[in-house]
């Protein structure tokens, strides 16, 4: 069985307000999946649930075949093993950085895992180079720009070498160049065999970020779960789920195709 993440009929509500309704979703090892949907459709809640921050009101969640429950997560050893296997990059990078400098931020995970200082240093240097942030090594995280903070946050999670990487709106607030860099970075991670789960509103880049797309609708259920390219072509469905308006289209026949909106 290759199922990494398995949600069966999962529902969750915030003090009576539903956030997820009857979600059934399977993600296999090595897959890259994009979560799409309008604001408030439940994407971030689902990511928190998958990361063991929240727990379903009903239904079951299995990670690598193991059922994840509140009770099980109370066991510190189980919880730590689980959190090492799944890394979560938060929507707001500010909230993820709490160490004195970038080096310590990235070294936090490996040091926790008990790796010796040589191995920790190697991991930190590799992560710095992979994310092209070598120059930030001794900078304080809160003095960095938005894009730099995002890269440090990714590096701090990557140094744990998790099997699954979860990104909540990773392109939000990034300039176009950094967005493009991020997409190619995701492709590298995918090629390295990592399982990727990305929530995004950026339809232009979904197809490049993920091979499969899951679309949420206003009623907090899954409206579609298809290959990303196929789902993006279903404009009627995207309009029905309030993700785009009627001006959203693409030009068939062009060498490189993507969906966009012309200025009025």
């Amino acid at each position, binding site marked *: 069985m290759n199922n990494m993440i398995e949600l069966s009929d999962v529902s969750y509500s915030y003090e009576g307000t539903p956030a997820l309704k009857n979600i059934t979703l399977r993600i296999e090892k090595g897959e890259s999946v994009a979560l799409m949907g309008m604001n408030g459709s439940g994407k971030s809640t689902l990511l928190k649930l998958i*990361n063991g921050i929240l727990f379903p009101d009903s239904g079951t969640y299995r990670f690598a075949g193991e059922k994840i429950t509140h009770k099980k997560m109370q066991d510190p050893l189980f919880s730590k093993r689980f959190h090492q296997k799944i890394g979560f990059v938060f929507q707001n990078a500010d909230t993820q950085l709490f160490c004195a400098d970038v080096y310590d931020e990235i070294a936090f995970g490996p040091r926790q895992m008990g790796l010796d200082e040589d191995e920790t240093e190697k991991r930190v240097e590799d992560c710095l180079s*992979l994310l092209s942030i070598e120059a930030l090594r001794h900078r304080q995280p809160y003095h960095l720009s938005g894009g730099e903070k995002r890269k440090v946050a990714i590096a701090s999670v990557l140094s744990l070498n998790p099997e699954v990487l979860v990104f909540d709106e990773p392109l939000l607030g990034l300039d176009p160049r950094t967005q493009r860099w991020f997409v190619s970075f995701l492709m590298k991670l995918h090629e390295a065999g990592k399982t990727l789960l990305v929530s995004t509103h950026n339809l232009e880049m979904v197809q490049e970020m993920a091979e499969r797309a899951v679309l949420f609708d206003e009623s907090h259920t899954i409206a579609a779960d298809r290959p990303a390219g196929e789902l993006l072509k279903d404009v009627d469905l995207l309009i029905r789920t309030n993700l785009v308006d009627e001006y959203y289209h693409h030009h068939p026949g062009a060498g490189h195709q993507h969906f966009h909106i012309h200025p009025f």
Partner: protein
Amino acid sequence: MPEWLLKEEQYEPIPDRDSFIDKSILSLLGILSRIRAQSGIPSGKHFVHAPFKVACTFLLVILLSLSKSLFFILTINVALLAATSLLPADKIFHILKAGFAAALFTLVILLPSAFWGNRYGIVMLPLKVFAAVTAVNILSRTTQWRHITGALKTFFLPDIFIFVLDITIRYIFMLGEFSLPMLYALKLRSVGKNNRKYASLSGITGTMFIKSKEMAEEMNAAMECRGFTGEYRKSGRIRMNWADAGYLLVHILALLIFLYLG
């Protein structure tokens, strides 16, 4: 891609005492949900207006402090318990818990004086404390905080003072909302043994200070852009309704009992 990233991590965590993260998350969640629940408290033209509630609660606390009559204090206690019983179960629990805790604490503090023959104080003071804490808690649990701060306008408090109170409550909530994901992030990345636990927590606190400073500066700039010159005007006009009249009547009755019994 570095070699270690291509391999599956064979990692077995070692035990560590780090339940403080979970406890911090739970206590923060409790505060945030309390503030969030505040905005759900019903209010409107058919409910007692906040200025009356604030004034009457203040009056009640003064009367309780001044009274020497056990009958008066018992009457107020019974009336407050009756009022509490009309509220939802969770509110009853929290109001009574705070009242009993404060009364018990007073009782313990007064025990030595009881051994010296002061029987009056050991009965009266815990009852007074219970009634006063319950009255204030009923006010707090049945009135939105923004209405309470707004009600201060009726008592001729400067608008800028009310504004600072409003902003303080808002900031407690916003910074709480900001610090929650930080604690989650710390928990998610705490996958082993952390020998510098308090350094991580102080890192979170430091980031919070910086964030609150940045937010304050941005807000200051935004307010200046909107023409703020240091004056903040809040409307204090209210139209009395039947609920207000009934509420005032009960408190006038309490005042009369106090004047009669002392």
